[in-house]
């Protein structure tokens, strides 16, 4: 499972987006704010990566999108998790936890 650093970054962002959307449907800016908020400002989502990531997830059918009205009465595009996305989220969360466990173990016991 050799991934390049950028792939891993990409994959991580995807995972975060899916997780955020699991709670509620949101527009792109909202997703970025949410991630920043919950991670206590550690993870600042690069806006340049966010929208490509959203398109990617949409193309893979893991999230759906439609236009709606935002809280300020502006037109915005809202995303929500699809059934396939839910399954993928569960799978990737498990993989991530495995990954973290493995790395931690090596760092502690090597």
């Amino acid at each position: 499972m050799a991934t390049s650093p950028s792939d891993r970054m990409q994959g991580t962002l995807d995972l975060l987006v899916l997780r955020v959307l699991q709670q509620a449907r949101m527009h792109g800016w909202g997703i970025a704010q949410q991630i920043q908020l919950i991670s206590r400002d550690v993870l600042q989502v690069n806006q340049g990566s966010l929208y490509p990531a959203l398109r990617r997830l949409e193309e893979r059918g893991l999230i759906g999108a439609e236009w709606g009205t935002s809280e300020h009465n502006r037109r915005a595009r809202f995303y929500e998790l699809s059934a396939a996305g839910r399954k993928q989220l569960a799978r990737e969360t498990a993989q991530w936890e495995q990954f973290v466990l493995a790395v931690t173990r090596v760092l502690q016991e090597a």
Partner: protein
Amino acid sequence: MLSPARLWRRARALFASRRLNDELDEEMRFHVEMETARHLGAGMTPDAAREAALRDFGAPVLHREEAGDALGVRAIQDFLADLRVGARSLLRQRTYAVVATLTLAIGIGGTTALGTAVYRVLLAPYPFPEAHRIVTLWQTDARVPGSTQEVAPGNFLDWERRAESFDLMAAAEPYSFDWTGPDGPERFSTTLVTEDFFAIQGLRPLLGRAFLPEEFAAERGGVVMLTEETWRSRFGSDTTIIGRTLDLDSASRVVVGVMPDDAMAPFGAELWAPKVLRGDEREARGEGYWQVVARHAPGVTLERSQAEMTLVAQQLAQEHPLDNGAVGAAVVTLRDAVGGGSRRSLLVLFGAVAFVMIIACVNVANLQLGEALRRRRELAVRTAIGAGHGRLVRQLLTECLLVASIGSAAGLFLAWAGIAAIRNFAPQSLWQLSRLSLDVTALLLASALAILSALAIGIMPVAAARRIRLSEALAAGVRGSAGSGRRQRANRVLVVSEVALALVLLVGAGLLFRSLTELGRTERGFATEGVLITTVQAWNYYPTAAGRVEFVRQAVDRLDALPGVLEAGMTSSLPLSWPIGAERAPVVLEGRPAAGGDQQPTARVAAISPGYLTTLGIALRAGRPFLDTDRAGSAPVALVNDAFARRHFPGVDPVGQRITMAFVGRPTSREIVGVTADVRHDGLHADPAPGVYLPHAQAPTGALHLVLRTDGETATLLPLVRAELTAMNSAMPLEEMTTMTTLVAQSLQERRFQLGLLASFSATALLLAALGIYGVMSRATAERTHEIGVRLAVGAQPSEVRWMVLRSGGGLALVGVIAGTAVALLLTRYMTAMLFGVTPLDPLTFLGSAGVLLGAALLATWLPAWRASAVDPVVALRDD
């Protein structure tokens, strides 16, 4: 991995890209506004807030591109963009685009057309199941090595009975039926076949049924089948034709079926009928007139069947020494039997076309290279502003793709035209070409060629683009250098090879052309201008010998009396035309020791009227011609030709000698009363064979060619001749009248076809080579403008500059001519069979072709040379 849903999304993304782009823009605008609001809320001023938001966000263009990329649509959008840029770029380089496209079109079109023809004649599988087991059988003559002849019925029957290598054997006999149709008497060309003829080919009738076994027996022979072509053209594809009767040869025959055109048949055959053996045919072993096909028993090889047939032939030679003494048997595969000589020439022509195709690709590649070099500054700048190396290569390749596509489309059109031309002008011996069309084979070939050429011409610019570096390219402009030595050399090699290939083609065409002229000039032995010929088969209408003799005498007299007719005569065997009856007979030279079985000489025989020799202008060498006094009851006489005299009476006067031969009657001893000049009977290229003439009154055949020499107005004579003959016998059908000029042209048809093709190819190759030289020299002088300017500035004369360029171009061409000559010297030996009167190494042709090519090269170099000498030194030195 790509589910239908994903494909659908990609497709939608591709086609609705603008709408998606707008949506993305809106989405990002929203994001920026929200960020701005956030910054405002944190206390920034509105302007600062907006600035911060935008800065954080980054360039929208990149976002859009990446987002588009994520949708998997980037590649296709890039490709479409490349196409647009490529098209615009090609429009700017109009000359190059047109030349390249035309070149490819000609190459692909020509190769496809001829390739399809070659495939059809040489490679296409026969439409018979088990075609590999089908062979043809022929009689051979030990005295004429290498010849094959048709088989005599008696021999066929013995072969069929004795040979065990074949499980089926059958024969076909060319014949004709006279039919009284609504427009008057007509003749149908008919093929009589024995019982297993269709079974061997494994073909089923299109309509109706084939012949039943009992229909081959004597009493019940009243049936006939139509060929598909006749059914369509003469009977209008009428499906109710089965069961109708036709009045053929004054007897009723029922049409029982229609046979598809796939069946093996002599050229132009219209009807099929069962062969009912006449009693005398069962023992006929001398002259053969049957074409025999057979099918190998399972597992039998050609070697085995040939060995067996040789044995059988030997047995028959011992049992019938007089007839079969020199007769052998030959087993020939189907493919070899059909159009043997023409196949070779087709291959030669295909080689020529392949050459042209290579030249075409080389030219286009060269042009591409030149264009890439010319644009190197433009391309280098593009690289500098971030086009990316891969993108650059992609763009150049796209241009190549455009040229290749348009060239291929045009090539396909040319191929269609070429195929139509081949179909119309193909000689009769290549019957497979009569149905040539732009079919699957042709399309496959064209596609393969298109792809190959696209690849071939694409490699050049890719290689060139790789070496483009910005500084080098810009610096090159300043110094006016002519590009790296390696590039120049590649250029020159390409052009030299073009010239070489063009020379090879020119030599080939030149040799063929000289062959044709030699053939035209060769001594024929007979007159050609204004000679009109009508053919009749009089057997059925004048059943007695006396009747036929009287008919010929009257016909010749009446036709001679027609206005415009200078002389009239009759012969049973006409030069350069298909036999209408027996043409050979064994000859016994009296007063010689009795010849053994294989020493028996044969000769061509023709029964003629007294006026025939003068009608055709055949000279008399010795003795006297036939007179009216040479009649049925008087002393039997004969005339022999020079070839006969040389062969059988070397050094002796043949006049007065006696020969015995049988022709339309019992063997008769005859006195030779004269010697005639030779006539090129079998073709203008064939040496005259020994021949004997007999007076018709003493050899009353019914197969008659009535020959008229006119003062040239043949058109007005046709109805008059017809009227005379119809008046003499209204029921007797007349074959279509023809002229000797037509017969000569037909005999040359094949060669003319070959020459036409080869000449067009060499002309194209010449043009392409000239263009190639022009291109190279143009570019060379353009790149050396600076250097030329310097030379002119320090005092060189314009004529010196011109000479310099001419020498350079001429030098290239000379190298090409030498290389091409070497190749041609090696290759022309394969053309030997197609030549006449010239050797494959004919110096005149070689020198002539070299001269033409050098001349064209010099012409092509002239314009760049002149332009070079007209360079303004001031401008050149300033040139950047």
